């Protein structure tokens, strides 16, 4: 009896333990963020707020002296670098605009809230910004979190301006209130493949992807494009986020011997894959290609030494962040090494300000959405492509191509390529 009792107790302990471990594993992201985040936690952007002593108008967030803009950003949590960089440079760009006199006599009052990549926190941030703070418009950092709050902003009629978010539903179908500035992963991936095939010649390709829905569209687009351009799509290898076994991927790549390896997963995972390729002495025949996640410092940090000219990544909406044309933005925060999301932050704030400038004194949500829908631009920053109104509300179809030389990202093309968007 004692033996059975002990076994049953042990079995119960194991069952309970597994349940807790599985719950923790499945909800790792939310647990990670819930411990570190609070919707009250604000990024440095809060310091930039300007006392609102102007005359209130009927338009939420707009007075004679200020315009309120809100941001919920993944500053901590699963992907903190993007949020930190985007919000940091966005805030400094706004500071610079305010210091230069603001927009048509109004300063921008910016409130940044941290959502830690957490969907429910992002939604509560958005509700607070819209209902309590009464912001005029919003922007965001984070693909999943933005997808989660988009319906709320749509129902409230709050303009969502140029978020750092890459999911098809942001622009397909176009929403009355949502406007994008950075081409999505499918445009990024197809543009870099087309550019590489033109530069080095078509060839065989293997796509290594994380098995998440966000990458379905870009991978499908790449699989279709490769044969169209005279190449051969050998296989798509599925992996997980935070993959523990990259050795299996290398074994298959060695077996398939592609000219190109196309990566579509997170920046650190791509770095680990590249590191494992180096460990195994493997390199594709021609190059490694990827979307903006390949042109991220997190990739470089994880990959270790990357030989010159072995990887080429797409940069969404701008030239690579190290391009001389981006100096103006980089110098706003000289002590911080700028990544692509930093440059995105500058671009997003600059284009938001330009749109408000073009509205003149009559700042309304309807006026803004009408302007962006059909009458904005052509407008160009030194480091972006042409920005103008488009049917699908993607205002910038430009994509830069970057590579690594001497351990640093450099532009592989002098100009931003206009993609199909």
């Amino acid at each position: 009896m004692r033996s059975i009792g002990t076994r049953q107790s042990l079995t119960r302990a194991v069952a309970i333990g597994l349940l807790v471990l599985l719950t923790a594993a499945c909800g790792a992201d939310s647990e990670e963020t819930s411990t570190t985040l609070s919707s009250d936690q604000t990024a440095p952007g809060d310091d930039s707020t300007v006392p609102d002593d102007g005359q209130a108008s009927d338009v939420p967030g707009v007075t004679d002296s200020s315009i309120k803009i809100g941001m919920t950003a993944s500053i901590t949590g699963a992907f903190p670098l993007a949020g930190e960089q985007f919000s940091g440079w966005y805030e400094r760009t706004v500071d610079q605009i305010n210091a230069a006199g603001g927009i048509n006599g109004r300063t921008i009052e910016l409130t940044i809230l941290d959502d830690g990549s957490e969907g429910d926190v992002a939604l509560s941030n958005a509700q607070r910004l819209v209902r309590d703070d009464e912001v005029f418009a919003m922007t965001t950092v984070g693909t999943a979190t933005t997808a989660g709050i988009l319906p709320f902003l749509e129902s409230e009629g709050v303009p969502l301006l140029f978020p750092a978010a890459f999911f098809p539903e942001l622009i397909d179908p176009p929403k009355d209130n949502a406007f994008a500035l950075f081409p999505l992963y499918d445009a990024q991936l197809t543009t870099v493949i087309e550019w590489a095939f033109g530069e080095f010649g078509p060839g065989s390709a293997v796509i290594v992807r994380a098995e998440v829905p966000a990458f379905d569209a870009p991978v499908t687009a790449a699989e279709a494009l490769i044969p169209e351009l005279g190449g051969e799509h050998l296989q798509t290898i599925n992996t997980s986020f935070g993959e523990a076994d990259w050795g299996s991927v290398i074994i298959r790549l060695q077996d398939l011997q592609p000219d190109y390896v196309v990566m579509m997963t997170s920046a650190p995972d791509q770095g680990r894959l590249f590191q494992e390729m180096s460990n195994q002495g493997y390199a594709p025949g021609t190059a490694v290609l990827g979307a903006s996640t390949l042109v991220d410092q997190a990739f470089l940090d994880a990959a270790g030494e990357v030989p010159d000219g072995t990887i080429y990544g797409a940069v969404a909406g701008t030239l690579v962040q190290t391009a001389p044309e981006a100096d103006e933005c980089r110098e706003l925060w000289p002590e911080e090494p700028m990544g692509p999301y930093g440059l995105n932050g500058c671009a997003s704030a600059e284009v938001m300000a330009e749109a408000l400038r073009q509205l003149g004194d009559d700042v309304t949500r309807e006026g803004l959405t009408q302007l962006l829908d059909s009458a904005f631009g052509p407008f160009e920053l030194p480091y972006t492509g042409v920005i103008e109104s488009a049917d699908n509300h993607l205002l910038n179809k430009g994509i830069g191509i970057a590579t690594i030389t001497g351990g640093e990202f450099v532009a592989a093309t002098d100009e931003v390529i206009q993609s199909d968007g």
Partner: protein
Amino acid sequence: MTTLLATLVNGAVLGLMYGLLAIALLLLFQTTGVLNFAQADVGMFLTFLVFGILGATQIATGWGIAIGVLLACAMGLVLYLLLVRSRPAIALDLSLRTLGLFLLFAALAEKVWGSDAPYRFPAIVPDRSVIIAGYSVLATQIVAAVFALVVAGAVGLLMRRTRVGLLIRAMRSDREIAMDLGVNVDAIDTLAWIASTVVALVVAIMVATLTFLSPTMMGPFFLAAFAAAMLGGLHSMVGALVAGLALGVVQSTTAVYLNEPSWSQIFAFLILLGGLIIRERSGQSMTARL
């Protein structure tokens, strides 16, 4: 054929890591009857401390790890005092307490280090590799494999050939009678908590070196190690090591030939569930026979 051999080698290397972590679990379980669900995350937390020390002091990695081993000894002792000695309980309750500990360490690491993760842990051995069956095995992986085999062998010898091993086996058989016979169970319990924490640290450092240092890095390894320990029968280091190897090979083969990463985890859990059911039935039939 080369692909298959390379897959087997890759799986074996992965499996030895699972086996090594399973050994850390068994070190404690065999002695105290406690299944420490926080084992892997304690190792992760200590690895972050070592990483912090290395960054702050710029000392050699080896010295950092040596300090880490001392910290692990202290951590093992503190955990024993807090979790066990402060309010003694049966092994089942103590195992459940470690679940709370697991959540605590995971949340703490996320809070302190999560925002900038993942990190690259410095190499612990020279950046060299050996080609086996067309697959390049890194020096770190070889060290991990040798360490796993040495620990398994050493613990096996300790249990079978030494007086301490005899006492542990006596405790495992009947703790109360062992106490009545004068066995210092507290000392042996303390030793087990310390030893298992040190092994957990070593495993976590190896995982961090081979992948990244992050609060979530041990997740996939711990689940597989847990499965290996269960499949090994919870009383056999060699069994756990072999089970870990088998799991690693199954996962690697699944990844290479099925191209479905999610199936790797599913297979691991199917094997674990199957193993648990078989063990439960065989345990009941054995008891019935007795």
